[in-house]
């Protein structure tokens, strides 16, 4: 539903598709992912929801190989990233990642955060990197903070800088790992608004989130995970609004009505 929208100045000119097939990941005897398969089309926005410990963050971290899956295939565009011979750094250059804890570099200014990888990884000149950085800072509404230290910004502002940092690498795919979970409630909206704009501009996005309203309104599809498997997936409004599976229903009722006490499932 969002893939046709195009906004002038959008950088996601070549959004990539993601294809995951039969993915397994375990830590010792603990199976975290038990055969996940998932397709994300170019420019599509997919939200991963589910209880903590369900494996959704691990799945996301497998896509840019922060975690190495034991089994299964992941493709980004036509590159198989699970190929042992793949150039991991080249894959990551195409994939932007936004973390729950922002992970801005505290010893650099906001501008430094946005330019360092452009210069060291993409080999852009200082002037070129700065220009791209300022464009992306304007995009997240923080151009006037360019010279500030990250610690001088609020949590929401830091997360917007982190998004701008990822965008400065001109990614073909953006991964968001609970981007609003560490934020004060009043700053969540600003971050979600930027992600919504990004979705409209046609970026391929894979988002782990607990923001059900965002999942329902912005995602093309929602995937509900529990216990390392995909329990239910489908169009956002259907999965969030009218879940078919019992476990999805139980999870959503707990998330949407946190004060309501209900009988334990199973």
């Amino acid at each position: 539903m969002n893939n046709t929208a195009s906004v002038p100045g959008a950088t996601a000119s070549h959004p990539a598709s993601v294809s995951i097939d039969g993915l397994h990941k375990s830590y010792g005897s603990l199976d975290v992912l038990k055969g996940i398969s998932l397709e994300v089309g170019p420019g599509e926005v997919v939200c991963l929801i589910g209880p903590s410990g369900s494996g959704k963050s691990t799945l996301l971290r497998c896509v840019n190989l922060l975690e190495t899956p034991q089994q299964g295939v992941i493709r980004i565009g036509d590159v198989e990233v699970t190929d042992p011979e793949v150039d991991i750094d080249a894959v990551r250059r195409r994939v932007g990642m936004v973390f729950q804890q922002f992970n801005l570099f505290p010893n650099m200014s906001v501008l430094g955060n946005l330019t360092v990888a452009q210069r060291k990884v993409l080999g852009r000149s200082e002037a070129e990197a700065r220009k791209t950085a300022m464009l992306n800072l304007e995009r997240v509404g923080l151009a006037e903070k360019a010279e500030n230290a990250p610690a001088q910004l609020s949590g929401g502002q830091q997360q917007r800088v982190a998004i701008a940092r990822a965008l400065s690498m001109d990614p073909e795919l953006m991964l968001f790992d609970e981007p609003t979970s560490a934020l004060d409630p009043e700053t969540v909206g600003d971050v979600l608004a930027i992600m919504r704009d990004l979705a409209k501009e046609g970026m391929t996005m894979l988002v782990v989130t607990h923001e059900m309203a965002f999942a329902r309104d912005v995602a093309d599809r929602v995937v509900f995970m529990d216990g390392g498997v995909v329990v239910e997936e489908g169009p956002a409004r259907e999965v969030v609004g009218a879940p078919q599976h019992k476990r999805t229903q139980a999870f959503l009722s707990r998330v949407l009505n946190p004060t309501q006490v209900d009988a334990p499932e199973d």
Partner: protein
Amino acid sequence: MAMTARERAKVSRGVQYGLLVVIVIALVFIADWNTLISRALNPSVMAQQFPEIITVALKNTLIYTALGFVAGMSGGILLALMRLSSVAPYRWIATLYIELFRGVPALLVFLALGFGVPLAFQVRFNNLVTVMLALGLVSAAYIAESLRAGLQAVPKGQYEAARSLGMSHSRAMITIVIPQALRIVLPPLTNEVILLAKDSSLVYLLGMTVSQYELTKFGREAISGSGAGLTPLVLAGVCYLVITVPLGLLARYFEQRADARSARH
């Protein structure tokens, strides 16, 4: 008896200060100032130490310390990275090295390098190279442990963020992780330099020409002269402080600057 806790603390502190004053006064009166000054603080003996104590001894101590630090820092970075490596033999080698050189007195390392190595390998380095190696070998072990603690104190997310931006392992370490770790290890690293400055006194074991004397050797030679007393050693001690105290102040300045930069508003 009816004192409040605050009043009791006040009285107790008053007693502590009083005791301190009494001890100082007692020491001042007990001391034999005439002997003390003539034997340990003799102005005419002091005058004889100049300018060589500065132009030779202090200069050499600084040179030896700097050489030792350069070698120790290079070795320390390498060892710290080896200890944190995912390659098991690297970890074993680094651990073995650190345990060995941290556990053995620097004096023995100097003797081994000065006399053991020439015997075993039929090579003889010049003194400066031996000093650099000996001080470097010992301090590398300590520096490696400080650096390892600093590297581990940098949140894992920093490394992950750098890798996620497409940086290679070494690029992420050099550009993102190590600069942050160095800031964390600045205080222990200052300690290291101060220890090095003092350990450089062991150079005398290698046998030196007069122009190679550092502070301690210089002072010891001077007290063996007739009637010099202990004054030359006291002066040497002051010269060590001239090196170490500013280092401590410098480290504190950098720490405060780093704190100010990462503080909120």
